[in-house]
């Protein structure tokens, strides 16, 4: 049996219930578990787990700082930069730190060693506790365009011995990849509507490309049609759980209450979900052996 297990909760469409699943799953596991909120643009899991934050760390990305006394305006830095973040002119250099991806190229290529990398703050990493659940979240500064560097900082806190649950952002582009990669299993949360299905297909494509085993949770399962069942059957995708569309569930969610606290039967449902996922991972590992 693995000593460490990382389960990422993702989706294609926003608002399907990732945070609901991630937070309730972590809470029902209850010990030796850490939740990483990688939705650094709009982190919400703290609303449900209500952690006590014990440390805050500013996270930065490396951006170039030029010592113009050493610079000979050769233009090599501008040539290597594909992001137009450093623009050498005839006798001056302009940098656009917000465009910089922190690749280090300019600093490496400068023949005069005139470029140093300094940290530019993009967000904050917060660590705390909720009962026995360890909690880590990133919060991107307003106006920052790039979330992956902050997500990478959050991901450094994946547990080496225990269970990590990752609350990923919506979509399928680079912030999601950063959040989900290297996980042992991905739970894709969806809803049985045309938008839900359309976006689930994109998310399935993503997880398949990453080569990570996955299953689907259908939330608000009673609102739509059978499109989700047909699709999962055809694609041989396991539906792990279906949560019905109940007003009471929506109301509890709106108040920031965990489903497992508001509705006792959900404690069992989420324990079952975790069992199912563990079983799926074990099966996958055995299959690979």
């Amino acid at each position, binding site marked *: 049996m693995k000593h460490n297990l990382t389960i990422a909760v993702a989706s*294609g*469409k*926003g*608002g*399907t219930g990732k*945070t609901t699943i991630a937070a309730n799953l972590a809470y029902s596991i209850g010990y030796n578990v850490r939740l990483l909120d990688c*939705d650094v*643009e*709009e982190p*919400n899991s703290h*609303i449900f787990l209500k952690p006590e934050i014990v440390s805050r760390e500013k996270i930065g990305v490396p951006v170039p700082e030029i010592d113009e006394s050493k610079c000979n305006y050769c233009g090599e830095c501008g040539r*290597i930069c*594909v*992001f137009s973040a450093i623009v050498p002119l005839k006798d001056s250099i302009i940098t656009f730190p917000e465009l910089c*991806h*922190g*690749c*280090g*190229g300019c600093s*490496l*290529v400068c023949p005069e060693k005139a470029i140093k990398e300094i940290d530019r703050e993009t967000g904050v990493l917060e660590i705390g506790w909720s009962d026995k659940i360890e909690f880590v979240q990133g919060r*991107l500064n*307003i*106006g*920052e*365009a*790039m*979330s*992956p560097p902050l997500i990478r900082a959050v991901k450094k806190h994946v547990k080496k011995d225990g269970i990590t649950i990752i609350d990923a*952002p*919506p*979509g*399928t*582009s*680079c*912030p999601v*990849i950063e959040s989900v*990669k290297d996980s042992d299993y991905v739970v894709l949360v969806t809803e049985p*509507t*045309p*938008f839900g299905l*359309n*976006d689930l297909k*994109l998310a399935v*494509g*993503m997880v398949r*490309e*990453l080569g990570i085993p996955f299953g689907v949770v259908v939330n608000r399962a009673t*609102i*739509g*049609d059978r499109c989700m069942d047909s699709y999962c059957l055809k694609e041989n995708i396991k539906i792990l759980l279906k949560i019905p569309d109940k*007003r009471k569930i*929506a*109301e509890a*969610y*709106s*108040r*920031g209450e965990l489903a497992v606290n508001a509705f006792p039967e959900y404690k069992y449902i989420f324990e079952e979900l975790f069992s199912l996922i563990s079983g799926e991972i074990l099966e996958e590992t055995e299959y690979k052996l």
Partner: protein
Amino acid sequence: MKELVVISGKGGTGKTSIVASFAALAEKKVIADCDVDAADLHLILGSKIQKKNEFAGGKLAVINPDLCTGCGICTELCRFDAVSPVNGKTGIPGVSINRLMCEGCGVCANFCPVNAIELKEKVSGEWYISESRYGPMVHARLGIAEDNSGKLVSLVRLNAKNIAENRKYDLVIIDGSPGIGCPVIASVTGASLVLAVTEPTLSGLHDLKRVISLAEHFNIRLVVCINKYDINTDMSRQIEEYCLTKKLKVVGKIPYDTIVTKAQIAGASVVEYAGKPVTFSIKKMWREIFYIIG
């Protein structure tokens, strides 16, 4: 030329459903779906693609295995965990470059002592000009795991504006994406008006506050819609009070109605499908917005 951008912060609040209704109500406009990561609007507007274009957003490092000596410099220099030796640290030549992780910065290609790595342009998506039931529409599809969503969003916006100018239309309505990062910033900068669609939940309010800060940061006028407001009227009131303190107008309070999903399944916008309180509130909201945007 006015641009109305519909965003939310939190996902799933109803942006696309509302934009679809606006498309049915507004005249002489171009629709732009800037949720390039997970575009859904075309599902309701019955869009027929007239022109398809490739989007070359960035670059990708590609290794020539025959030239690789296994020196490991590329692996050491890559900041994005995209390069790894094929056989571990055994000194056997060969690296693999993970296309999902590669940011196309070119550092590995630049410093490879035997020029075994080439930095190539890559097609990272597509964008489309379509004709919908309600007029011209520009939309796009960003490839899986791709970045440069901001560039693709800007391209969609630019083309929507061009079409509007050609047809002498005054308005572009933009369906935005969730969050507050790159694609959202690219959708809102320079817009005439932002409509933030929220929901009466603690998560909705939390995320709305960040969206409001974003609009303040970029100095763009913002109005608010509380969707599904009757799920929690206390939270709705909290949101209204918050908006009051920020001097922001709440232009609409839309009741929760299962007909919204039924309309989506039928491939119709809510205002086409239903003649109920929900339709009435959306129409009222549109009149308000139309008046504000001028």
